């Protein structure tokens, strides 16, 4: 019950700040325009790199929103209140991740096919693209809470956040972009997707604990 209320509040706060929703999408559109301009607009050239570009854009556009997941709550003292009221911190972190996923992850996932069309992504891979992002966007949000909790006290921590998160996200990128690539080549992507699922389960179990530990250190 308490958890539900927390998620509801976090989603509402995030929803009211519209920039969280449209910023990643505008970012993706801006960057995807640069590829034909830089590479030449040949459909063959673009289709070849389309799986990687769609995936990397989804990842980067999520990355720019991560910095602020905990910042407001840290600065206005809400996090202290959580601790004082005996609220379990992993649960609070999980609620933050859920809210972030609902307001940023899902729009990014739903927008990916648009980028796919612009990049001439072969038709047979849209299903796998959506499926792989459905598994991966929660991982982005979960690991994002860890990164955001680590840099919550730092001014201009965005660059540091990227350095901390990128190594953790590299397996996700390998499996996710790999899954889409396999389908464009006409192969089955099941293996990739299962490994992605494994990453998601691991992130789901460990990330809230790590984020809670980081917040605890920061509040000491």
């Amino acid at each position, binding site marked *: 019950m308490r958890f539900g209320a927390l998620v509801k509040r976090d989603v509402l706060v995030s929803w009211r700040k519209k920039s969280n929703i449209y910023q990643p999408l505008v970012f993706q559109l801006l960057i995807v325009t640069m590829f034909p301009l830089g590479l030449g607009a040949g459909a063959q050239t673009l289709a070849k790199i389309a799986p990687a570009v769609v995936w990397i854009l989804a990842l980067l556009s999520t990355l720019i929103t991560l910095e602020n997941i905990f910042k407001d709550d840290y600065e206005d003292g809400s996090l202290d209140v959580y601790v004082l009221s005996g609220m379990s911190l992993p649960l609070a972190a999980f609620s933050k991740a859920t809210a972030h996923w609902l307001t940023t992850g899902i729009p990014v996932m739903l927008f990916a096919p648009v980028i796919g069309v612009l990049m001439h992504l072969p038709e047979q891979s849209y299903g796998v693209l959506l499926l792989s992002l459905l598994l991966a966007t929660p991982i982005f949000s979960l690991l994002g809470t860890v990164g955001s909790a680590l840099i919550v*006290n*730092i001014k201009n921590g965005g660059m540091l956040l990227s350095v*901390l998160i990128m*190594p*953790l996200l*590299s*397996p996700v990128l390998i499996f996710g972009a*790999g899954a889409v690539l396999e389908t464009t080549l006409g192969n089955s992507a099941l293996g990739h997707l299962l490994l992605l699922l494994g990453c998601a389960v691991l992130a789901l179990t460990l990330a809230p604990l790590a984020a809670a530990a980081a917040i605890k250190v920061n509040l000491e």
Partner: protein
Amino acid sequence: MNRLLKFYHELGSPPSFYRITSHWLKPMLILAIIFTLYGLIDGLFFAPEDYQQGDSYRIIFVHVPAAWMSMFIYAIVGISGIMAFVWRMKVAEAVMMASVPIGAIFTTITLLTGMLWGKPMWGTYWDWDARMTSELILLFLYIGVMGIYSAYDEDPRKAARLAALVAIIGLINLPIIRYSVYWWTSIHQGSSVSLMGESGIKDWAMLRPLLVMALATKFYYIHSMLCRAQSHLLKTEQDKNWVKLALTGERKDKTQGGNL
């Protein structure tokens, strides 16, 4: 056993850590220099030529020890990170933060010598093969630990605890990253000629310098790490009495030696 336990507890307190390890610095450095000289002379001039790679394989005598060290040191960073995070040991914090720079240096050496080896073997300085890629990601992990520590410079204890957390997260992720990268290269490209080659190292005359160099890098790591850990402890504990005693005591010893 009892004595070992006592030794461990002694190392856990900053003053006795400082006192005990002060005696180790010089021997470690001397051992490192002797082993390096012996290993390199043996490896570069006396070890036989490789029948496939000719003389270029001799890069192995710096490349592989550095690669071993880059991973070994990350394991130490992770383990001392756990000790620093769970038990809040000051010495573990010092060891962790002292290991990170030297680990990053060994990782850089591995990457650069790997590139210099890749040029004659692969025809290109950089190839996205599994070893090179995971080594590059390892460098990012080191940079992350250093970055978070230096970002909190006004509160070193807090910084160390957060850095320990980052190191632990990295330690958990390292196997996943390595596995995924190896899997990725096995799918996306035909395996390139591995630097170690099928020829491998079978000859004792080739193996001996390699092992000697592996020991030399370990000794140098211990020297560099202990030296940095001592500085770290002096800095974080500078208002404590033992620091003043240790430093003035040192000076007294030196003047006595001069008089004699």
